[in-house]
């Protein structure tokens, strides 16, 4: 039986304003180890907000998020930063690589933040870049890589810190179909071979088709969970 990675209970996020907006409205979910899950829904449905809450980038208005037995909603800002560094990998829509660093340095950088030794950083970065099909491109900077290659570097970077799970926000939004297929194959392979848990926020059908669990969200609520 798979181990529970994320336990969400009655999660709410309300943005104050003239008319309060319930971006996440009472969601309860359990995500287990090794899942390949897509949060789908139209723009503004709350999937990115939910992903941000899961990643500890945003604070919920109420409810709890337990990750590996730790309720991250009770952590201080500094504790959250450290928690993210050690437990969560992020893949962003716009890649967000450091342009002045090479592909290998971008991957290594996260491990540097974890104070890992240089030899380990270099070896793991090379191994991950090879795993995402970028062998031979280690020394190239983001500006010298295609969008698909940059996003693969971002995936390698997300995995570098050996996180409990990877959160990917619209990872294929800027990619063509070939790059998307490549990227999804790589993530699926990592999921199957290394048991890495992936959670996507997406409205890309190509991603949704690959997902083994699809959670539909609308108006901040879970519409279906298949």
């Amino acid at each position, binding site marked *: 039986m798979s181990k529970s990675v994320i336990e969400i209970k009655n999660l709410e996020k309300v943005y104050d304003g003239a008319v309060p907006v319930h971006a996440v409205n009472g969601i309860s979910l359990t995500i287990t180890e090794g899942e390949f899950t897509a949060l789908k829904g139209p723009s503004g449905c709350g999937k990115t907000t939910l992903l*941000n809450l899961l*990643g500890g*980038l*945003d604070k919920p208005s109420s409810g709890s998020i337990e990750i590996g037995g730790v309720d991250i909603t009770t952590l201080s800002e*500094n504790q959250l*930063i*450290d928690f*993210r*560094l*050690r437990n969560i*990998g*992020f893949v*962003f829509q*716009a890649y*967000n690589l*450091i*342009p*002045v*660093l090479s592909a290998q*340095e971008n991957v*290594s*950088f*996260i491990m*540097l*933040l*974890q104070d890992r030794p240089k030899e380990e950083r270099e070896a793991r970065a090379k191994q991950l870049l090879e795993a995402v099909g970028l062998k031979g491109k280690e020394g190239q900077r983001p500006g010298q890589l295609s969008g698909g290659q940059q996003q693969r570097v971002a995936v390698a*970077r997300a995995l570098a*810190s050996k996180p409990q799970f990877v959160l990917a926000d619209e990872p294929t939004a800027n990619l063509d179909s070939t790059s998307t297929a490549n990227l999804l194959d790589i993530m699926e392979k990592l999921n199957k071979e290394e048991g890495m848990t992936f959670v996507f926020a997406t409205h890309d059908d190509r991603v949704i088709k690959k997902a083994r669990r699809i959670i539909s969200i609308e108006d901040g609520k879970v519409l279906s969970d298949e």
Partner: protein
Amino acid sequence: MIFKVAWRNIWRSKVRSFIVIGSIAVGIWAGLLIIGFSFGMNNERTASAIGTTIGHAQIHSNTFDAEPLSSATLGDSADVVALRRTVEDLPFVAGTAQRTVLQGMINSAKSARAVRIMGVWPEDERLQTTLPMNLVEGDFFESTGRNRLVIGEKLANRLGLKLRSKVVLTFQDAEGTLSRASFRVSGIYKTLNATWDEFHLYVHHEDLEKTLGTPLVHEVLVRFNETVNTDEKAVEMASSLPEGVALKSWKQVNPELGFADDMMAIMLVLVLGIIMMALLFGIINNMLMAILERRRELGMLMAVGMNKRKLFLMILVETLMLGFVGGPVGIVLGDLSTRLMMQIGIDLTSKKDGLAELGVQSIIYPEIVPEYYIIIAIMVVTTALIASILPAVRALKLNPVQAIRGE
């Protein structure tokens, strides 16, 4: 790797970084030139005053310092010889010269003025001062004759005197009796200190003694081996002097020179401070722009787990690197420019008369002042440190989610 990232980040916007680095370099270059020029001018003025007229220190009797009467001597000839020997035995003393100093009046056919009459032993003056080399006409008691007088050019002009003009000097003898004697101008001198030239005239001590009836020595001028640590040397020398006499360093003899020295040090630090303030705003502006441009990247770094300490460090290192590049460039440029100016001099002939009033030549030769290089280096690092605070605080206040979205 944080250093590597910081270094590479500097060169992301080459034009902007070159402008900031250039402004740091130019600011330091200008600062060093100002320092070199100021020190060159002031040291020349000081060296001129010390070498030509006042020496590094002077010894008088305590009563002379209180009121410079003719009777306030340093004792008889034996006392003066003993005093000079004591002083000359000190390792840092190059030599001494004794003088008779009288307050008096000079009368020419045209006018009369209050003056200080310096009764000198010409050989002593030649050895210990450069005044004999500053003669524009005549000689410094080398020619034979009686009652010869060497007078400053400015005073000579005021009194309408030329070589061989006759004047009458009035002064007090040791008993306080007024004495008068006629003298003939045998030399006209001109130093860099026009004020000195206007008030001091030199006569041979033998000619004075004939009128006074006895040798009077009021002053022993002391010359050191070099003009460094003169205050400390003066203190050490003072402790070896007999009772009843007092020593004054050149700063005490001519407080204006000492004051100029101290004031210049303060002014230069202020000038450097102003330059650094201008640089501070330039660096802050540059770094704030850099932070603004890299909001997404900084948001990503915070999201993936870069803690505030490391983020602060990265921005701090980046800012310091701007200073570490611009600083040495400015110091090298400043040093080379100063060395070049030391060779060719800065020609201010158009301000010749004004400079002469200040006791300075019309061509200024700047000086290298190594300790200011250290002060500048410390100021650049401090400026960069201060400049990094605001951009770093701005970066730390970024909300990762909003920053990643580019909001």
